């Protein structure tokens, strides 16, 4: 029998074989449709601790579900599936399978920190989003981000050589993230650089080292700023 209200059922709960013969009877297609129950049958209470072990997730256990984070969320305004309040609840109870349904949008947090600023329990939801995204990435549930590839190459060079070399970092980054080593923008960058070699500017910079000119109309600005900083410091220490 066909399911008429499929929208009410999560697609992953509809089980159906295209071709199935049982006891010689052909029950292919919708004849063998089964729907797995939507009941949640257990918690994983230790999952909260795992998220807490990632930077930013430390305070997730404080949440009492007021929803201030989701309310203030920049991303929620774009996509109502982006719901930090809900994910924090799932993390707290260890409802991992539910959380995983949103694994491909959690990384979209733009770290505007409006949630963290408004949270009455100091949960720091922005940190929880970061921690969760890292957990997802580290466990291979989501692909590594470009910035992770960059960080890895950068760290690798630091540890290996005690220093980094810019060209090497870029090459390593391209290699790790599966990008071609020769890219159009690099070629254009090189071309434009040689075409507009800023000889005049270079000469000016050299002269500046010798003569140390001041910014135009600088006047007494420096003096005033120094005085301001001094009074601020005094106020901070004796206020």
């Amino acid at each position: 029998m066909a399911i008429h209200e499929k929208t009410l059922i999560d697609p992953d709960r509809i089980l159906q074989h295209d071709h199935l013969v049982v006891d010689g009877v052909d029950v292919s297609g919708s004849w063998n449709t089964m729907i797995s129950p939507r009941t949640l049958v257990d918690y994983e209470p230790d999952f909260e601790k795992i998220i807490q072990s990632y930077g930013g997730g430390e305070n997730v256990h404080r949440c009492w579900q007021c929803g201030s984070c989701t309310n203030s969320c920049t991303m929620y305004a774009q996509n109502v599936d982006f719901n930090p309040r809900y994910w924090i609840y799932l993390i707290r109870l260890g409802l991992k399978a539910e959380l995983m349904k949103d694994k491909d949008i959690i990384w979209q947090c733009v770290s505007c920190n409006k949630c963290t600023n408004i949270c009455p329990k100091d949960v720091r939801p922005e940190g929880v989003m970061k921690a969760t995204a890292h957990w997802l990435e580290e466990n291979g549930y989501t692909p590594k981000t470009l910035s992770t590839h960059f960080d890895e190459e950068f760290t690798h060079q630091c540890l290996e050589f005690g220093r980094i070399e810019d060209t090497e970092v870029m090459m390593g980054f391209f290699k790790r993230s599966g990008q071609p080593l020769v890219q159009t923008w690099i070629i254009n960058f090189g071309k434009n650089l040689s075409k507009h070699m800023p000889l005049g500017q270079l000469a000016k910079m050299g002269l500046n080292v010798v003569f140390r000119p001041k910014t135009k109309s600088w006047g007494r600005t420096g003096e005033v700023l120094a005085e301001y900083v001094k009074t601020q410091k005094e106020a901070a220490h004796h206020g």
Partner: protein
Amino acid sequence: MSAQDTVLVVGAGPAGLSAAATVAAMGKKAVIVEKEDVLGGAPIISGYAKLVPSGEWAKDAIGRMVSRVEGDGNVSIHKSTKVSQLDGEAGNFTATLSNGSKVEAGSIVLATGFTHFDSINKPEWGFGTYEDVLTTSQMEQMVATGKIQCPSDGRVPERVAILLCVGSRDRQIGREWCSKICCTVSANLAMEIKEISPSTDVFIYYMDIRTFGLYEDKFYWKSQEEFKTKFVKARIAEVTKSPDGRLLVKGEDTLVKRPIVIPMDIVVHAIGMDPNALNPEIAKTFGIGLEKHGFIDKAEQYTNSQGTTRKGIYTCGASTGPEDIDTSIAQGQSAGSRAVADLFSAQKVAV
């Protein structure tokens, strides 16, 4: 002992003990009539563990209140006794007790308290069916023994679920009130369980959390943040048993919008406060009115605080609705003072 010196105090829980001590401290006589054979009321009779919010053991804290009146020459006590008849009027009451004696009193304080909700009236939550389903009072008794274990087989519970609003906020069973203190008591109980049994996780199933006033951070936040109590927003529909012997709590998780069937080892009912089961009898004996839920009806609050519908009869504590112990004690003092003030005005009239 004349009527004009004496206040009759009915009930010896926190409110009644406080009222009697107040009367005695003002140099008047208090006669306590208590239907049980021990003084102290619900905290002693039901064996509460540590009290909210002081954290003192009930037997120590309420014990001090009991010895205060027991050692007072102005207080006389009738245990295992009820008032069977009341004659006279304000300024000149005569109470006939079930033990045959008569008490003349100028005014009366009814500190007749409440009755714990009987969980049998919510059979779907498994109380009386499964050994590991308990009430908060029973769980407090377990805490007082210093050992947390499943009554069925003595194993240490991996998980304890506390269901809030059992016998409160439930039109289906005619309980349209919030019992006020169960949220705080449950948050406290969760901490006590965790303290004794660190491997046990406690889940509190709630509709709302009403830890009023300063109980917010001291109990709710502390329980959640320091003792890792998990608060789950779900009204449980049913408690059943799984083939492996564990309990199953069934309901709908309000926030995930999905049905849940979660295994638990102990389920605790946070039972509410009913009107004293004897209130119809009390109302008839003392000629006072009851409000629509069956608690004792209060007089106008602003100039007749602790008054009932009858002149010369005052009330305090959980007799007029769910109340916490600290407030009951304060109301006991308030009712005691008003009762004593009546004695003075009766004297003035007599002169």
